[in-house]
């Protein structure tokens, strides 16, 4: 994320803190889909996700005047969304993501095996869609929200090492899947 965008968002949050509803609408429009689908991927149910998203944005409205700008606005908002999602999962009695970390298995193919199949966009798309939410969210936040591992760890309230391991595991899972699917596709087509 550019420095200018961060500064603009910080200015908007300051206005929200002063009760400016137009600024709140701008923040809402900027984050609505990103945060709603972040929550929905965790909870599965769009209606429950809409209620949790509502609570997240109410917290943004209520707490904006106390936001000091020590972290990015993105980190702050996704952090609230993370906590609310975890609360919702706990209320259901389900397992939360932080409890789902498993030991990374380094049984992925060697990089050389990937050369033939990595360029197949359809295969890569299929493999990305197979990622578990916990693995997918870390690389999504890194790729598209411009957050560094340290900032993702801050939002998720976990050690930076955990985020590093999750991102590594996500990429290894994609590599393994791409090789598996690519090779089976090659076998099917006789190439």
């Amino acid at each position, binding site marked *: 994320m550019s420095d200018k965008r961060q500064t603009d968002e910080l200015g908007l949050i300051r206005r929200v803190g002063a009760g400016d509803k137009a600024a709140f609408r701008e923040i809402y429009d900027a984050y*609505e889909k990103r945060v709603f689908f972040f929550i929905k991927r965790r909870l599965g149910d769009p209606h429950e996700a*809409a209620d949790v998203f509502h609570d997240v944005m109410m917290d943004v409205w209520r707490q904006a005047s106390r936001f000091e700008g020590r972290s990015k606005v993105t980190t702050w908002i996704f952090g609230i969304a993370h906590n609310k999602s975890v609360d919702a999962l706990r209320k259901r009695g389900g397992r939360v993501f932080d409890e789902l970390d498993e030991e990374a298995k380094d049984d992925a193919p*060697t*990089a050389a095996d*990937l*050369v033939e199949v*990595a*360029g197949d966009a359809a295969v890569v798309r299929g493999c990305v869609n197979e990622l578990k939410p916990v693995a997918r969210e870390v690389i999504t936040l*890194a790729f598209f929200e411009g957050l560094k591992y340290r900032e993702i760890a801050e939002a998720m309230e976990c050690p930076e090492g955990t985020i*590093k391991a999750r991102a590594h595991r996500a990429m290894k899972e994609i590599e393994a899947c791409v090789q598996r699917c690519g090779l089976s596709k090659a076998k099917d087509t006789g190439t």
Partner: protein
Amino acid sequence: MNDASSKEQETTELLVSYAANSATAAQRAAIEARAAADPDFAARLALTLSSKEALAASESAEHAEWSPGAFGFQRLMREVEREAPQPQVRWIDSLNMWRGIAAAAAVALVAVSLWRFDSAAPGAPPGYGLAADGPTSAASLQLTFAPSASEENMRALLLKVGGRFIDGPSLLGVYRIGFESKKARDAAVSTILADKIVESAAAE
């Protein structure tokens, strides 16, 4: 975690930061130089970039699905208004009068709703027929919900009766609910009125 695994994680971090455009200029140059000299590393870099593209396509498709949108913002504004501090003026003496007016208005709304439902259209089930049976009548209802009603509750109710939001909420919190046909609307009325999240219902 052993050193090899730690090194692997650091390589992944570098590749992800390169794909995310968050690597420094020096890191980018180092990654590009290594990719030029090492085909295995180049393959991992290519896969990281392809993964980002695939994820972007997947996110884009996901964002086309339903989300709270403007409806969600209106819902937020209603709660914001409810939480807004009330003006501390001497009007406190007239508070009871306004409460009385509000109660009377609510009673009148319920009475009109019941009167309209009881003016049954021919063939309507007894007790809740709809008066709006003229040529200009539409298959819609006006509803107000209890403040505690969540969006999930509202949508579940509409899903159950086959209705959909077509407008609202107004400043007074009134929603217009559309139905495929008058028959569907008439059939939905008793279920709607029996639901505790509904405060009032009136046919249009």
